[in-house]
């Protein structure tokens, strides 16, 4: 299917943040290699949104299919963050779960999940929540079968709610500066706990706390990308080759890694305090750093790279 104009756009220049899910997939995969499952022509649309008088999408906000990446077969799922905030509905979730289950059969070199989600679609909340649980179990099975599951995060909606938990289940994560990974969104925290706890309009605070740079520095993500499809492609190729196994040793290591993080940074109020303790000399300058300068900073932080995921 002819997607958005992605095919004609240079992936070097195509902004991941700006691109649609279809553009990301088309430009990420080897040219012309993407083959979609349940494409829009099948019109698998939400049976529930009409009850709420809401418009539906032909793909329910997620594109799934197969492609090659540097010649190697991969399965890809890409959430469309602009449709209902990329949230998990029944069909949306079913497509992702189906793709992961298919991986057990097809044994691709990797499954790539292009996250762009606010979490559960409230109009289909129970289905979305359950689909997230199913997705996490399916990821674990795919990983246990030796197939890396790589998450790529840099879209408008970020990776929130259950999406954040799914991301935490993946073998590896690549994130851009714009990407956010978190469970509770800033507005949710503010609504429930007050602006003193979290001022959601302070965007710099949002990104310091949940953004790509913080996650990368603390080891919450394994690669940092400039905001181009090309950079994500290169990051994905790099991560596929060094995915940790899913076993007791890995989870014991993750337990130690996370316990250590809380012991060392549990009393920090702000991300800049964390970064200072990580050995970043001038933590206030981190948000303004360009990709190269930030990569150089990451290279000096021991905690950023690990196999404990």
């Amino acid at each position, binding site marked *: 299917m002819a997607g958005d104009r992605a095919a004609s*756009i240079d992936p070097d*220049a195509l*902004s991941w*943040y*700006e691109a649609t899910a279809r553009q990301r997939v088309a430009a990420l995969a080897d040219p012309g290699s993407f083959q979609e499952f349940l494409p829009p022509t099948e019109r698998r649309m939400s049976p529930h949104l009409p009850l709420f008088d809401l418009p539906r999408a032909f793909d329910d906000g997620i594109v799934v299919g197969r492609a090659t990446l540097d010649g190697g077969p991969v399965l890809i799922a890409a959430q469309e963050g602009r449709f209902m905030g990329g949230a998990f509905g029944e069909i949306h979730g079913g497509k992702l779960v189906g793709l992961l289950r298919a991986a057990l059969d097809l044994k691709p070199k990797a499954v790539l999940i292009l996250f762009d989600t606010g979490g559960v679609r409230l109009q289909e909340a129970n289905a979305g929540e359950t689909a997230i649980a199913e997705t996490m179990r399916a990821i674990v099975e795919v990983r246990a079968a030796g197939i890396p599951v790589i998450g790529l995060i840099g879209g408008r909606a970020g990776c929130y709610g259950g999406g954040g938990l799914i991301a935490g289940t993946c073998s590896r994560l690549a994130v851009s*500066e*714009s990407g956010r990974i978190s469970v509770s969104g800033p507005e949710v925290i503010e609504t429930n706990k007050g602006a003193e706890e979290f001022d959601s*309009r*302070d*965007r*710099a*605070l949002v*990104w310091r706390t949940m*953004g790509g*740079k913080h996650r990368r520095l603390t080891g919450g993500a394994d690669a940092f990308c400039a905001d181009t499809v090309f950079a994500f492609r290169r990051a994905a190729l790099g991560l596929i080759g060094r995915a940790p196994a899913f076993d007791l040793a890995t989870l014991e290591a993750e337990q130690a890694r996370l316990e250590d993080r809380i012991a060392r940074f549990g009393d920090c109020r702000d991300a800049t305090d964390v970064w200072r303790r990580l050995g970043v000399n001038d933590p206030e300058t981190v*948000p*303004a750093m*360009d990709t190269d300068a930030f990569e150089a900073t990451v290279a000096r932080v021991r905690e950023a790279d690990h196999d404990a995921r």
Partner: protein
Amino acid sequence: MTEWRGERQARDARIAAGRTFAEGKVVPAGAVVDLLEVILRPGDRVCLEGDNQKQADCLARGLSACDPAKIHDLHMVQSGIVLPEHLDVFETGIAKRLDYSYSGPQGARIAKMLYGGQIELGAVHTYLELFARYFIDLTPNVALIAGVSADRNGNLYTGPNTEDTPTVVEATAFKNGVVVAQVNQIVDRVPRVDIPGDRVDFVVEADKPFYVEPLFTRDPAAMTETQILIAMMAIKGIYAEYGIRRLNHGIGFGTAAIELLLPTYGEKLGLKGKIATHWALNPHPTLIPAIESGWVKQVHCFGSEVGMDRYIRERPDIFFTGADGSLRSNRAFCQTAGLYACDMFIGATLQIDLMGHSSTVTQSRVAGFGGAPNMGSDPHGRRHPSDAWMKAGREGQIVGDPALMRGRKLVVQLVETFGDKLVPTFVEKLDALELARKIGLELAPVMIYADDVTHIVSEEGIANLLLCRDADEREQAIRGVAGYTEVGRGRDRAKVEELRARGIIRRPEDLGIEPLDADRALLAAKSIKDLVHWSGGLYEPPAKFRNW
């Protein structure tokens, strides 16, 4: 014997009363209410400095906390009604009458209070008009102003957001009025003297820095293909054709898109140096790429913009800056420059009728005008020629002796045919008329009158109203760019095609523009972060615009 010094004596008495709460000129923030209650008299004309951007908010809180038994029936004469306190004083009876220019965020409440009779309205002015009346019949008895810092003698540093302050002080201090300044900080020596101390009677060290609203920051990430298409047409069909060098831009996304297309699309058309070199403009962050690529020669500013101070400080060849290095803005001068020294005003509006009258008033809001009608009008007092001005004059002049022809300022309305929530921009009748009837305004709040408008640009095309020869042609020219609105669908198709053949209406394809080429890839910056990169890290955007 005629008393010639009564006002002066009254002023001296007010100041003497105020001194009891001051140490020299300095008044602690906690004594603001006490001070105001002794220097104000019932019925005073008061300017509570509410500019387009900066707000004397500490003094506003003080005024609204005064005892209405002591202070009442004030006549507020201020350009901006921005803070809730600006209207609270009318609810308590502290103030009664109002003359103002702009009420953006309080537009809905002001309409309600006008309707309810809580406010006795003088008029809704343009900026220059209100400033002018400060010197004729609306001279303040007391001015409550805002600055960044002051010394103990009252010398005032207004910082980059000087805005209205010199005008307000000039009118008040030299006509027996009392001037009270709130400042963020009292210092031994101010960085530069924007207002000399002998014009300032009291200085209040505010409890927190005065509030400044980032009004002119447009996030490139929100720009649409339609806005880009409109911007392309404006550049190619108006800027290039008339050779517009001196200009003023409105604050909408459409003009911001033009700013971002100059270094890309404009460059491709070979227009650098030929258009858009000299500006009357707030320091729009979206102008940064054009400045950095050498398009812009100089910019004079009405006010500043949050986050732009460091950038401006490092670009003194472009901006007006003081000996201290920071921006010097001045609303009165810049409005005058926009009116007389610019060949074009281009900006957006919410409604345009069949004749080309436009208004930003909707049924429930009285937002005021600010400066748009000053700049968006043809100044009949202009006496200097320019190519653009003369060309427009030739297009518009249909009768009379060519030797007596004068030029025309271009006043361009840049609109999308539908606004938010599918509200049509083109209408048979302006909501402003209904509002005027409802709240009893003598003058309907029209922002730009039809006889000043020269061009309307929508995504459907450009209508050149200068070339229209009668009212019917004008109506069809407007309908011809009104898209799928009811007004647009009501067009006489044959007449519109005839107007198109005569170049009165021009479609994108008539200009050699392919609508499908209107792509965000054309924007010199696609995000606020890109603007920061363009500025070499000098632009420091407000937190709410960040996504990093």
